[in-house]
């Protein structure tokens, strides 16, 4: 891509030389099509953004008469705050449990000699693809039997169980990337297993743990059917359920509140994604990684 350059001439006046830039029709078309596609993606989101700051919003996108009243409303509503708290508890617990358990399980799977390891890992990966709809019915029955219904923590436990297969698969791959020689060197240096894990393995897999944790959190945060089925009291309804309930009560609520709440609810995961893509280059890094 040609760039304008400043050329100093002997006459003390600077000339700006701009090489002629040829823009091909194909390149133009590419960018135009992309911009159009971009609009397709942005359009539905715009409604939420505008309605959130509109004092009189409707279903369609319209120029908002700007106000922050909707925000004040939502932040004052008990049910909104409760569901946010519920989501934090569920997603947080799920993430913590999954992260710890997956690291613990992935280490032996990565380092130690276990027969049929490859088929086991494939089975694990396959399990991550099993539909939740299949699991939720027997689990519901089990929870009825165990008296575990309507608890945020037991709900989180099941979410952790369904997140574990993929998390273990991810973590195992991250631990594989730490050269085993470092652990050998540490062993020869005199470190026991605990010290090796704590001072060598853990610090070096921290990025992997972060990725796994963030991935698990994003999934748990948006989980719908599991908390929907396993909880029923109003104070245990997580964010997605709250939004769903809002949607059902047509006309008896304020669009503005709904838009604000879903906006606020979506914010943490978007922020987490931005954080992950900035600090972890990989499939998620899009800004400069292409080409």
């Amino acid at each position, binding site marked *: 891509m040609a760039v304008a350059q400043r050329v100093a001439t002997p006459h003390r006046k600077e000339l700006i030389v701009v090489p002629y830039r040829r823009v091909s029709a194909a390149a133009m078309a590419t960018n135009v099509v992309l911009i159009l596609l971009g609009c397709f993606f942005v359009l539905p989101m715009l409604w939420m953004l505008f309605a959130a700051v509109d004092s009189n919003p409707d279903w369609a996108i319209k120029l908002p008469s700007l106000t922050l009243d909707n925000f004040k409303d939502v932040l004052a509503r008990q049910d909104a705050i409760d569901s946010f708290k519920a989501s934090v508890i569920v997603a947080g617990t799920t993430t913590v449990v999954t992260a710890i358990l997956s690291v613990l399980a992935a280490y032996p799977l990565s380092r130690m000699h276990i027969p049929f390891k490859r088929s086991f890992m494939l089975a694990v990966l396959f399990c991550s693809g099993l539909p939740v709809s299949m699991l939720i019915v027997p689990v519901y029955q089990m929870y009825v039997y165990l008296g575990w219904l309507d608890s945020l923590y037991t709900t989180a436990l099941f979410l952790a169980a369904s997140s574990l297969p993929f998390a273990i698969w991810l973590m195992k791959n991250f631990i594989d990337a730490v050269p085993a020689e470092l652990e050998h060197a540490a*062993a*020869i240096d005199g470190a026991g297993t605990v010290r090796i894990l704590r001072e060598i393995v853990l610090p*070096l897999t921290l990025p992997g743990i972060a990725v796994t944790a963030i991935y698990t959190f994003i999934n748990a945060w948006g989980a719908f059917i599991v908390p929907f089925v396993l909880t029923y009291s109003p104070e245990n309804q997580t964010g997605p359920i709250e939004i769903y309930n809002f949607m059902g009560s047509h006309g008896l609520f304020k669009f503005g509140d709904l838009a604000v709440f879903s906006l606020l609810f979506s914010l943490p995961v978007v922020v987490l994604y931005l954080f992950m893509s900035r600090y972890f280059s990989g499939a998620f890094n899009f800004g400069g990684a292409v080409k």
Partner: protein
Amino acid sequence: MLSEVRFEGVHKIFGTETVVEDLNLTVKAGEFLVLVGPSGCGKTTTLRMLAGLERPSYGRVFIGDRLVNNVPPRNRDIAMVFQSYALYPHMNVYDNLAFGLRSRGASGSVVAQRVTETADVLGLGQLLKRKPSELSGGQRQRVALGRALIRQPQVFLMDEPLSNLDAGLRVQMRAELSRLHQRFAVTTVYVTHDQVEAMTMGDRIAVMNAGRLQQVDTPQTLYDSPANMFVAGFIGSPRMNFVPGRLGGAQGRRTVEFLGAQVPLTRGQDVTREPAEGRVIVGIRPEDLQWKQDAPAGDTVSVQATVDVVEPMGHEALVTAVCAGELLTSRFPPRSGVKTKDQVELALDPARLHLFDAESGEAILKRPPASGTKQASVGEARMDESA
């Protein structure tokens, strides 16, 4: 405290493959022993068994008087320098050096003192705050050395530590390692595939091939009296020439027929084993094969050869010539003027011949000790140790 290292009847089998077979080897206390051989010969596996990173399938390993077969690496009081250095990437040089001491519960002041000492010895004083990724290859290598030195172990293990360095650095580090060994005199087992490294650094060299120990001796003895064709061809560059021959004559007046010449064995040379049908392989080092014109007058045998390739090396020229259908490499003076297709006369000294059984490859010629050679080392070589 210096310890010797002993392998008794050690085997290592992976699946169906025997990687180390019946290894019997003693490393003397304070000795720098080089374990050398081509890739896959079992030398690294042997080292790892000594380190405790692999368990022998059969046999026993001793450090000092202690049987260490079931002792985990951390309790063997050894230190190892890995080929890839294995420096802890998330710790700076200071912490890398201190890790071993801290794992054993050393106090902060002891750690500080030892780290400073070691860093001084190795010239790392300015680099203590840096992380491995900020160091050059040579610097990393020295940190790896420092990490081993600082623990003052009974045995040093080194797994091809110089192979990741460029040629100039390698030569420099070879000298530095030798100097360090002079100074600290720790029993060291050093693994390499490079015979030059082995020859220049080792007090003794153990040559391995295909899992079996071929010969253990001082560098000079290995050069002068290789126990079999493998060792003869492995040690010494350029490689020894091998030509087929026939052993004849009667007791006391043996002759060898090769390259169309009949060469009587010189006085004092004796054949230890009769080869089947008298078939032998004759070994002649390029440095023992000279241009007749250049050779000192003496008891020599000459053969005619046609020059095939001349490789000028600056200080000499390596000339490959064809004689009686065999290719021979010899060392010529640098400005001999010899070129391809020339006919030359090559002189060889019968006293410098090597004879190997054509079937087993074993050396079968015993020569009287050359004046000035340490005869003691031949006796100590324990030829019965080798396969």
